[in-house]
């Protein structure tokens, strides 16, 4: 095995004269325990300080370092160079997002959508903290736990063909998060959230390709959440036809 590997990195610096999108090749050490991110950090520290990318925890929990690696959305801290040898390894910014620069994409749209789905506990009546916890059995916790594991890494949006065509689509992570609160035994806000999920750019936009769940590094299964949310939305629609006085 060679002791070097080539990283073919997408560069885009719109402020510079030669700032058109292009690839640059960098040779980095190929070490047994180096992730793609270690390679990028080697470039930044030793070869070219101008390369821009996001990273932080390098343990797969902060969600910062998502990029396209050989065309697939990946957490670069958890994707190992030896698995990609002999290379070259193509590294690009996440698909389906505007690129700010190099490997850094613009998340403004997602941050807006996250707030739209009201991802907080909604209660008709809030109990004072002095009266202690809302009881929740392990089984009730298990009902939504999986959908609470999203790290907002955006790999699912990069994988989603619907979001690629129509950025109005609320998208996998935001819908999964809404669904997480809807399933929480302590929450009473599902009808409020349904008005967002049931709009044209909500759950119905999804054609159930399932790429989002395949891309998810945390096993959240946003596709499953969307399918379940569709069912809930359909039931609610039927109810509001049959029982119009229930709708707001």
């Amino acid at each position: 095995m060679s002791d070097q590997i080539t990283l073919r990195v997408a560069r885009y610096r719109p402020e510079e004269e030669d700032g058109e999108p292009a690839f640059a090749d960098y040779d980095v050490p190929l070490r047994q325990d180096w992730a793609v991110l270690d390679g990028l950090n080697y470039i930044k520290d030793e070869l070219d300080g101008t390369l821009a990318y996001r990273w932080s925890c390098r343990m797969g929990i902060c969600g910062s370092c998502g990029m396209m690696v050989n065309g697939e959305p990946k957490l670069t801290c958890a994707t190992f160079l030896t698995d990609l040898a002999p290379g070259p390894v193509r590294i690009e910014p996440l698909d389906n997002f505007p690129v700010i620069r190099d490997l850094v994409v613009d998340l403004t749209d997602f941050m807006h959508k996250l707030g739209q789905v009201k991802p907080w506990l909604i209660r008709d009546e809030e109990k004072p903290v002095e009266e202690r916890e809302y009881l929740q059995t392990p089984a009730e916790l298990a009902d939504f736990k999986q959908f609470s594991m999203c790290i907002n890494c955006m790999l699912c949006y990069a994988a989603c063909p619907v979001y690629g065509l129509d950025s109005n689509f609320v998208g996998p992570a935001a819908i999964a998060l809404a669904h997480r609160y809807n399933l929480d035994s302590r929450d009473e806000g599902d009808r409020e959230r349904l008005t967002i999920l049931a709009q044209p750019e909500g759950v119905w936009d999804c054609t159930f390709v399932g790429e989002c769940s395949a891309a998810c590094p945390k096993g959240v299964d946003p596709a499953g959440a969307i399918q379940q949310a569709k069912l809930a939305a359909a039931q609610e629609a039927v109810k509001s036809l049959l029982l119009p006085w229930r709708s707001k």
Partner: protein
Amino acid sequence: MSASHDVVIVGAGGAGLRAAIAVSETDPRLSVAVVSKVYPMRSHTVSAEGGAAGAISAEDSLDEHAYDTISGGDWLCDQDAVESFVAEAPRELMRLEHWGCPWSREPDGHIAVRAFGGMKKKRTWFAADKTGFHLLHTLFQTSLKYPNITRYDEWYATRLLVDDGRVCGVVAIELMSGLIETITGRSVVIATGGGGRVFPFTTNAAIKTGDGMALAYRAGAPLKDMEFVQYHPTGLPFTGILITEAARAEGGWLLNKDGYRYLQDYDLGTPQPGPVLRSMELGPRDRLSQAFEHEVEKGRTIDSPYGPVVHLDLRHLGEKIIDAKLPMVRELCRDYERIDPVHDLVPVRPVVHYMMGGVHTDIDGATALPGLFAAGETACVSINGANRLGSNSLPECLVFGARAGRSAALHAADAPRPGPAVEKQGHDERRRLDNDLFRRDTGTDRISTIRKRMQTILEDAAGIYRDGDTLTKAADELRELRERAATAAVDDTSRRFNTERVAGLELTGMLELAECIVHSALRREESRGAHQRTDFPERDDNRFLAHSLVHREPDGSPRVSHLPVTITRWPPGKRVYGR
């Protein structure tokens, strides 16, 4: 260009978000700015694994939590602060429950608690072993419902604005555009976390560069107890990824190369098959990390490509318990070490994890500067003393984040609007930053070269064991490095998302903190908690039952003074574990 708010919060992790919500709860008419160099959900609170301490069970008491904390901190904690902390922690954790945090539960639906190092009772709330992740996301998602909170995501604060001695905002760079703006407020809360990145081998994320400590220090606020740096005994070699203490609380063993539970040789108790509170593997972190060093000296550790390691053995717990209680441990071992703790021994070694020191605050989060507040790892109240107990830092973020937020809200209600001097300071800072950016492409040193050198110096001089000579030499070399860092090359001259520029700014702050650590360590001629001097091996309560305060002199050099510890009900005693 400038933006104006009532309260400006720098940092959007556990403490910063809790402070923002506390301001909103205190007075929803107050406008809050939350300025963070990363999106809130990227903050390092996300990496906390094991849990959050708050006495709720019938067998537990606030006094016991206080005593564990104070003895764990080797009597350097301010006991009035600890008493408030343990009293408010359960309430804050319960509030998180009401906001939707998916705490792990007992079969009957009540909150479950687990054992943790240095704690005599089970009092650690947990969300499996992703407690910090769930706590942070719950706080962030909850914060979205407050319309008075304006976020400045991916803005890097470069200095505090000070008008007539009062702190009244920040200057910050919007990373996406490179725009430099003043963001004013009538009070400012700093909650930017610690600065573990001054060391080479750390559990801390890349963002943990102590920015807020440096901001406050430069503005004239003293830093407290900076010599106390916590080494967590179980980090994965190479990456420094943390294997949570919960792994030992659930029954994991630490073994040397002979498969021997070596902690029994270090006055930490006798080995039992199951976990025993305040004993053996559930001793405090400082003592466990020190025991590791002695095992290295005795030649009883295992060699690895990244230096000596010992083994964490979880195999006897079985797959079921590991998956239920420690799923992240298994995930991290599989993804980053390519081993499975169900079948394999996990190589671990001590790793820099936490700074007990920080910006000197009182019990309400107020610093020495009017209008400036601090909370979380950035701050030093101090409830952690000379050694923090695992699972006290998350509730500290909540309790003192909330306190600092309330204090900042009250202060903002009375404080005058920032005066015209602030605009000039903003202008000066903008010019300084621009000059700096466009002047640095000819520097001889690389930022990474200086950073690595700083990290090596600190590890050698201010690691688990220290001595006066090495610390003195380190202080000299760090001063030189600080001068070199000012002219290190910045190749990147574009404004848009210039991470090299930020790295340069972070480095100058880290070098100041490194000097604070070394000077404080040099002046403390005793051994206490995480600060162990081979030339002064005993605790010395006559001279050093006191906090270190570091002030910045006009020439940038640190000056250390001392401040008595507040003792209320627990006079200094011997730390006893395993008995």
